[in-house]
């Protein structure tokens, strides 16, 4: 029970647990350079994991100042400490349950009022706070002048001005952290007080909760959250209280349902007083660069043109830069290793050499050769994200997303899907309603990933010659149309219910930092390696086994028999058993389809050879049907694994697979039978 906080001067932090390591939390709103500050403090030695039971990344590092070693935790970006989002819940639970020795709140000096709102909330929690006033250069360039000492005096907490991008202010921040952690820093905050008309109400709520709250929950914070109508806190207090007392409290809260307006207004009154004291700013700022760019970037027509042009650029860059690297990796590295193994393993039995060369190196080669494409794609997308542009893309796409039952926020995860569907599904975390998240997860596999682009690039010229580009883009368009159609139908008939609100900050444009882009590339590419890499390797060995057993002729293998068994379905789409098997192997990794065709058609994996053999053996209508089905087919096994993880439901995973299977087969049959009826390409 936390009678301990009762009546004490709250500059003291009550009941802090004995811990071996000192703990520092880095808090802040999104887009304030919080992660830059974290990186500066901890250097490169970071551990990236997840918050327990959550899908949000948790970054941990260490900081040593004058021999004092501290553990530093980067909290997720949160605008406030209400239970509106997972990030906000994590931040407040961290302070309540882990009791950091100090919190560093990073604020954007050019948007100080909004940033101080989070501070107003943090000051009610049991941890001393340092305000790291970041981006003072941006504020100055806008004519905003902040006097840190005045702010410090008015707040009663340490204030450190910084330009984290250029490491300005870092030594002072380190010093202040150490001082506060050692209990030598000053901390006597002036907290916001509720409007006088509600003071009595707050007092009555306080009286009722006092003595009933578990350790770590400050009475006044809980009382304020109850007045705000915070669902999570309300449910908890109800659990902690005897039923009769709860009934009385609930009654009191019901009479004050509009108290939230006073709670939030009183915070901004507190902020206004601080700003009046410490900040001078031009009366009417000039039209900023951001607003000038936005006039084009957010224009209903112009904005779409900008979006289209930027995406064309991203794709061009990806393939122009990555394709040669991919080729080099394939020929020099994978080929080299393969030759090395072959000469080294000359004494090995045939099957073992084949397992290593075909199964293991084949799978590892697939993973390896995809890394350049993903890295370049994510770097380009990360640069767009870090300039602030992707938030504009969300704005422009919002009206279309609405038709699919989504809103602008789903834009980024779906875009990620063009690189790889795995990070697309993982990226659905940014969406704040479960329904919106689920819908995004279900639609993500319909975004053609780079592996499917590779298949198009390889097979369309073989089959369609000069018409290849047209066919390839039509197939991509087909995917997007199916995505839109599926969205409309799922939204209308399957996933009904409340829509999430589209409320989103559009940050100022700024020059992207290579560090942030590096992080973005690393996180998303690593998601592919971690989730897809090992699975592709395992399944590659499994497919090798199925196609090599019993030893001898591929045509007699288990895989071939499986293909033969399914060929009645295949024949509806004009596909023979080899194409059916290739399709099945694309379940492991989409690009496996090519390798499998290579084995089964005996092109020996040589690009030119296979293309010629297939062009001769497969009529165009069947080839088109094959491509259509491949583009729409069930998610690869790695994507399926993350769908399961993110939806936390086998039911929805099965639904996703069933849906795509039905769509792909229907489309394949329609295309092939349609072509036959028209007498084309059979």
């Amino acid at each position, binding site marked *: 029970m936390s009678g301990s906080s009762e009546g004490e001067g709250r500059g003291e932090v009550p009941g802090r647990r004995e811990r071996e390591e000192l703990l520092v939390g880095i808090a802040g709103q999104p887009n304030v350079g919080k992660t830059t500050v974290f990186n500066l403090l901890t250097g490169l030695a970071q551990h990236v994991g997840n918050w327990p039971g959550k899908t949000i990344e948790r970054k941990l590092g260490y900081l040593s100042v004058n021999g004092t070693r501290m553990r530093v935790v980067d909290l997720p970006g949160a*605008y*406030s400490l*209400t239970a*509106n989002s997972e990030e906000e819940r994590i931040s407040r639970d961290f302070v309540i349950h882990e009791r950091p020795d100090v919190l560093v709140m990073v604020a954007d000096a*050019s*948007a*100080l*009022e*909004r940033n101080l*709102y*989070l501070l107003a909330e943090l000051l009610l929690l049991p941890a001393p706070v340092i305000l790291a006033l970041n981006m003072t250069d941006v504020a100055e360039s806008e004519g905003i002048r902040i006097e840190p000492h005045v702010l410090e005096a008015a707040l009663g907490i340490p204030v450190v001005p910084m330009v984290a991008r250029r490491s300005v202010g870092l030594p002072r921040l380190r010093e202040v952290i150490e001082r506060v952690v050692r209990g030598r820093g000053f901390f006597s905050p002036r907290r916001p007080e509720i409007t006088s008309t509600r003071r009595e109400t707050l007092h009555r709520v306080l009286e009722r909760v006092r003595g009933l709250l578990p350790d770590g929950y400050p009475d006044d914070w809980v009382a304020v959250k109850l007045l*705000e*109508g*915070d*669902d999570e806190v309300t449910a908890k207090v109800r659990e902690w209280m005897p039923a009769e007392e709860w009934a009385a409290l609930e009654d009191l809260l019901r009479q004050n*349902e509009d108290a*939230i*307006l006073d709670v*939030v*207004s009183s*915070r*901004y009154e507190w902020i206004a007083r601080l700003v009046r004291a410490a900040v001078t700013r031009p*009366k*009417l700022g000039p039209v900023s660069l*951001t*607003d000038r760019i*936005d006039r084009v970037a*957010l224009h*209903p027509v112009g904005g779409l043109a900008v979006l289209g042009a930027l995406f064309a650029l991203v794709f061009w860059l990806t393939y122009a830069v990555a394709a040669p690297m991919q080729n080099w990796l394939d020929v020099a590295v994978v080929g080299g290793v393969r030759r090395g193994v072959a000469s080294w393993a000359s004494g090995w039995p045939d099957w073992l050499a084949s397992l290593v060369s075909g199964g293991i190196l084949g799978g590892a080669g697939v993973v390896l050769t995809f890394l350049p494409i993903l890295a370049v794609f994510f770097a380009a997308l990360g640069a767009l994200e870090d300039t602030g542009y992707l*938030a504009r893309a*969300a*704005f422009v796409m*919002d*009206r279309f997303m*609405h038709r699919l039952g989504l*809103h*602008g926020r789903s834009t980024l995860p779906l875009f990620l899907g063009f690189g790889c569907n795995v990070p697309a599904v993982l990226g659905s975390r940014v969406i704040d309603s479960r329904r919106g998240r689920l819908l995004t997860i279900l639609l993500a596999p319909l975004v053609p990933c780079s592996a499917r682009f590779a298949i198009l690039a390889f097979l369309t010229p073989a089959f369609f010659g000069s018409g290849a580009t047209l066919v390839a883009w039509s197939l991509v368009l087909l995917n997007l149309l199916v995505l839109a159609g599926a969205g409309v139908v799922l939204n209308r008939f399957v996933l009904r219910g409340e*829509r999430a*609100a*589209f*409320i*989103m*900050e*559009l*940050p*100022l444009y700024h020059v992207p930092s290579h560090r942030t882009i590096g992080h973005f590339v690393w996180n998303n590419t690593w998601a592919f390696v971690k989730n897809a890499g090992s699975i592709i390797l395992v399944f590659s060995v499994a497919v090798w086994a199925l196609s090599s057993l019993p030893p001898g002729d591929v045509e007699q293998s288990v895989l071939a028999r499986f293909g033969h068994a399914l060929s009645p379905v295949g024949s509806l789409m004009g596909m023979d058993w080899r194409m059916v098997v290739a399709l099945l192997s694309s379940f492991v990794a989409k690009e496996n389809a090519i390798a499998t065709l290579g084995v089964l058609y005996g092109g020996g994996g040589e690009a030119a050879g296979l293309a010629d053999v297939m062009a001769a053996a497969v009529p165009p209508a069947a080839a088109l049907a094959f491509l259509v089905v491949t583009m729409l087919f069930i998610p690869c096994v790695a994507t399926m694994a993350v769908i399961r993880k993110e939806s936390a439901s086998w039911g929805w995973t099965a639904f996703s697979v069933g849906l795509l299977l039905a769509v792909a087969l229907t489309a394949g049959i329609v295309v092939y039978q349609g072509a036959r009826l028209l007498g084309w390409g059979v």
Partner: protein
Amino acid sequence: VTDEGGNHSVGLDSVPSGRRAVVRGLEGGRAFTSRLAALGLVIGTPLRILENRGQGPVLALVRDTRVALGRREALKILVEEIPDERVE
């Protein structure tokens, strides 16, 4: 909507680009109110509409923050337009 003071409030979605307004009411429930508050928008906050094309989302400059709002959300924010003369 006209309040006791005779002031005329409209949904934010009907304020054209470039105009200024003051927030007079929030009609989306407590979670809605607290999300907007965290971005700087409470009753009494002056704001400027940066983008409103009659359809699609609305962009408002609230304090120093550009807040994008779906039309559905903009509709629930009641504001009073400030005539241009009153802008200093």
